[in-house]
């Protein structure tokens, strides 16, 4: 049965190859459905794998390595074309192919008018293939191959509209950032090979606990270099600036790559290498700190954005920060659980946003939207569900996973009060920006009356409804996720912490964020009626203290805006972007210098040879 697992890779690859070669000859819709079928097939095969895993006892579910072909065999080293089936890879694949399939279907509607419909689906299949390589890799080598391939697919898809200058620039930026990460991973792989004499997960992870002392220099360096790759791919501070720009790509791309799957690869990496990270508690603190800081910073920037997709992009960064916080404090399966729920509701949010953009004729500025609840009822309801899940409204999917993270930020192995406090603040921010976005978009009256919004076709709304169902109910999968994944994490199932106090505070923070958004964005004159009807009790209270609005404005909104603006302009534009641009500029300078050195004068060349030789000689003699 496991030998069928190669189909998971082969199907999307077939889709990519045939669509990119014969794409022009395929009828338009057929190409799209063909691509969907490939991904759907991969999903079915993954389900088969899941069933097969379930036929075995939990301890036997690990380390099913399927070797297709011994690629390089030489003395002391061999490299096999092989894949690894275990609960973690199957779990991740379920998300990748499952959510991927829904987004593929959605894209058929969304990209309907595009001239290069089939090229788009070719790239999408390439991405699914690349992501499957990344997830199924049985050694660090193919992990890096997959890692680079998803970067390539992301580059191609961000820059899909090649006539759009900003998209091309954004694609290039994403590519450069990701290459930084790839180099980090590569060096880490070399160090791993040096220490373990192998790149296979099975060998490395088996040897890891005895190969190092905790917080050994070399394990710290290895884990740190792995993290460079993880942070670059998952857009964590300080390698995060490419993600908001990546929103220049088509919206389904944002949903698939920049929300549900690729950007969470960093979390997957940490979870996959948990045997290594466990040996490096310092690195764990670093992961948790970076995660929680990213959650706060990205959340605060998200509160002042007006582009619908950028808000969700910053929200993605912030949520991935939560995931890193979870794996950083040592509860890997909680991180994976949030990864799953996040894939559901964030994909849904992006697809909903895509539906809105589609309906509004490519308008992305939320200040020009409003009142879409009547024109787009399905999108409205699904978007509301996604927003609730994202904000962590009780009993939605996001509520369960986020609560667990917040609880473990305090009670987890590496948790402490600071992590918990910052996480709670970030939870509050999440509620706020989510509903700010929601109210701007769907509530009130239309701010551009000339626009004629319309509901999207069924091929787009059906995935929305399925994802909405998952966003509502996915949270109840929590215990299953933990028990299913526990063999990978050494049999550990995260404990449930009965700490009502912390739980209540966290829920209150989420509610507080939502209510703040309601208070600020629902009390405009044109929205009074609706607010009265929806939130009568709260509205009463707010209405009576209407002047509070000004105080809010002064105490909360202005500082928050200022902080967000500051973060965006200073930290990003001047700090990180500047350094990346500067590196590029310097490299070009050096290159030009080398060209100038190449003067074309033979005498100078000869002089250079002599000078070089004399320098070498001097070096040797005095060495």
């Amino acid at each position, binding site marked *: 049965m496991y030998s069928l697992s190669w189909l998971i890779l082969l199907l999307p690859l077939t889709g990519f190859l045939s669509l990119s070669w014969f794409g022009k000859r395929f009828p338009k819709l057929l190409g799209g459905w063909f691509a969907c079928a490939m991904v759907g097939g991969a999903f079915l095969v993954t389900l088969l794998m899941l069933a097969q895993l379930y036929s075995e006892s939990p301890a036997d579910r690990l380390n099913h390595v399927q070797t297709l072909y*011994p*690629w*390089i*065999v*030489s*003395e*002391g*080293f061999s*490299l096999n074309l092989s894949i690894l089936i275990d609960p973690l890879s199957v779990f991740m694949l379920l998300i990748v192919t499952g959510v991927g399939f829904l987004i593929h279907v959605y894209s058929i509607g969304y990209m309907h008018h595009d001239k290069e419909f089939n090229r788009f689906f070719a790239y999408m299949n390439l991405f699914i293939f690349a992501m499957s390589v990344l997830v199924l890799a049985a050694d660090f080598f193919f992990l890096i*191959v997959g890692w680079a391939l998803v970067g390539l697919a992301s580059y191609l898809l961000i820059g899909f509209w*090649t006539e759009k200058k900003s998209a091309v620039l954004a694609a290039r930026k994403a590519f450069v950032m990701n*290459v930084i990460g*790839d*180099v980090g991973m*590569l*060096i880490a792989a*070399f*160090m791993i*090979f*040096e220490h373990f004499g192998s790149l296979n997960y099975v060998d490395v992870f088996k040897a890891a606990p005895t190969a190092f002392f905790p917080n050994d220099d070399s394990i710290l360096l290895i884990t740190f270099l792995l993290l460079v790759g993880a942070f670059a791919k998952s857009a964590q501070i300080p390698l995060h600036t490419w993600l908001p720009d990546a929103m220049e790509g088509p919206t389904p791309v944002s949903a698939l790559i920049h929300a549900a799957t690729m950007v969470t690869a960093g979390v997957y990496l940490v979870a996959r290498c948990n045997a290594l990270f466990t040996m490096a508690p310092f690195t764990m603190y670093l992961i948790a700190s970076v995660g929680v800081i990213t959650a706060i910073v990205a959340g605060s920037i998200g509160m002042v954005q007006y582009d619908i997709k950028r808000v969700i992009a910053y929200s993605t960064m912030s949520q991935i920060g939560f995931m890193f916080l979870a794996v950083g404090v040592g509860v890997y399966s909680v991180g994976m659980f949030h990864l799953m729920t996040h894939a559901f509701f964030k994909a849904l949010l992006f697809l909903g946003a895509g539906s809105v953009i589609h309906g509004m004729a490519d308008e992305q500025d939320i200040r020009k939207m409003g009142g879409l609840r009547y024109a787009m009822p399905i999108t409205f309801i699904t978007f509301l569900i996604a927003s609730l899940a994202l904000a962590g409204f009780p009993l939605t999917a996001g509520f369960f996973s986020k609560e667990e993270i917040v609880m473990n930020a305090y009670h987890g192995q590496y948790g402490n009060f600071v992590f918990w406090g910052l996480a709670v603040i970030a939870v509050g921010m999440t509620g706020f920006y989510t509903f700010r976005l929601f109210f701007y978009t769907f509530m009130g009256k239309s701010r551009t009356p000339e626009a004629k919004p319309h509901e999207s076709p069924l091929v787009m709304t059906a995935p929305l409804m399925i994802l909405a169902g998952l966003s509502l109910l996915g949270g109840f999968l929590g215990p299953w996720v933990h028990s299913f994944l526990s063999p990978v994490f050494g049999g550990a199932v995260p404990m449930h912490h009965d700490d009502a106090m912390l739980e209540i505070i966290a829920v209150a923070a989420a509610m507080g964020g939502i209510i703040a958004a309601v208070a600020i964005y629902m009390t405009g004159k044109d929205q009074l009626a609706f607010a009265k009807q929806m939130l009568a009790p709260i509205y009463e209270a707010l209405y009576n203290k209407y002047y509070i609005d000004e105080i809010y404005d002064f105490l909360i909104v202005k500082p928050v805006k200022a902080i967000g603006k500051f973060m965006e302009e200073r930290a990003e534009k001047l700090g990180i972007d500047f350094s990346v641009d500067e590196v590029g500029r310097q*490299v*070009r300078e*050096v*290159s*030009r210098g*080398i*060209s100038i*050195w*190449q003067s*074309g004068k*033979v005498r*100078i*060349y*000869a002089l*250079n*040879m002599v*000078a*070089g*030789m004399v*320098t*070498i*000689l001097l*070096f*040797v*003699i005095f*060495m």
Partner: protein
Amino acid sequence: MIAAPEIDLISLAPVLVLSVFTMLVMLIDLFVGKNKSVLVFVALTGLLLAAVSSFAKTDWPVSSFGGSYVVDHMSVFFTMIFCLSSGLAILLSVDYNKRENIRVGEYYSLIMFCTVGMIILASSTDLIMIFLGIEIVSLCLYVLAGIRRGDTRSNEAALKYFLLGAFATGFLLYGMTLLYGATGTTKLAGIAEALSHAEVLSQPILVMGVVLLIAGFGFKVASVPFHMWTPDVYQGAPTPVTAFMAVGPKAAAFAAFFRVFTTAMPELAPTWEVLLSIIAVTTMFVGNLGAIMQTNIKRLLAYSSISHAGYILIAIIAKGSLATSALLFYMLSYTFMTFGAFSIVILLGRAGKENLELEDYSGLGFKAPLLGLAMSVFLLSLGGLPPLAGFVAKFYIFQAALNEGYVILVVLAVLNSAISLYYYLKVIVFMYMKEPKGDFQISLTPITLIIIIIGLIGTVQLGLFPGPVISLAHP
């Protein structure tokens, strides 16, 4: 009484066969009329027979002529590479020479003379033989670079190459002399034996000799700071000659470089390892950074070949049997991808307009999708992307170095591979993402098609199924 010399002509079979055929080419040239295509057949037959006759001795290693000539798996494998690259160069020149009006008789015989020199270079275990081999190769290349006498760039290339080459030869010869002075022998085995005595090893002129040898060989393989001739000469020389120069003679120089340093001077390794490491790293950086700003495809490939010299130097540093097979594998894959890339460069040119700027490649991917794809494969393989030959080759060399513990060197090399992708991808971006400027007038002849297909098969085959060739390259 004079002792009878030890003569083993069977070991020399490839050299003899090829020399005979070279002279045949020159003679037949006098008797055939306008149509010179028979020369191509004679030349290719000669190369093929030379390749076959290198298996005349099979009980490797066979040392002959008092230890100055050897037939071992390295020399045989290199002979294969040389015959292949010369054959490809000759095929590549057929259309080009017609287009550019180059007299073919001397041209083919010079390439074959050059091949004789390369075989000698790869099989010699005597400094004098190595010197003679290098001189044969260099002389032929000086002339080949300047064979388009009406073209000033070609003249410039030839003159520059000649002047600097003569200069470098001076270094090399001086280095060999000092080595001889210190050890009293020119045989590599003898030198190694002499160096095992402490009083020989401590002589200061040895160090001078080693450095001069590095300078001399460094020039031939185009490593920094002896690389300055490369971009100018590669650009000015006729394109098939450029392709040939980048592969065959370079491989030959590396063969001799490798042999001299690993068999004659393992005792001195602590000295030259450090030196070569520094040279390798600077070579990679200068090659890769220099290539980034280039707009001429031949210059770009010239810088790329400089950076590849840096990677190959790592094999010499790593020594050992794994390094030998890594070197062999690398040179073979490099042959395929370089000839492939250059064949497409030639294909895009026309009489009077060579189309060598990157701008001229705009939109090639749409106008001629298969050519664009082939070019992409070659460039990506040069950049070392899996699953192509260039990747396996680099991987193999890096692994040889890792086994010997040169982690930092390998890390820097990997970093350089990442940098190099930038400019290889730049060409691909031109091919696929820019609007074509003018019409492409591509006349794909069967011969060029054959070369491209050979290049493609080699690049993909060595990448996907490297096993058989690796076991061939392994002693």
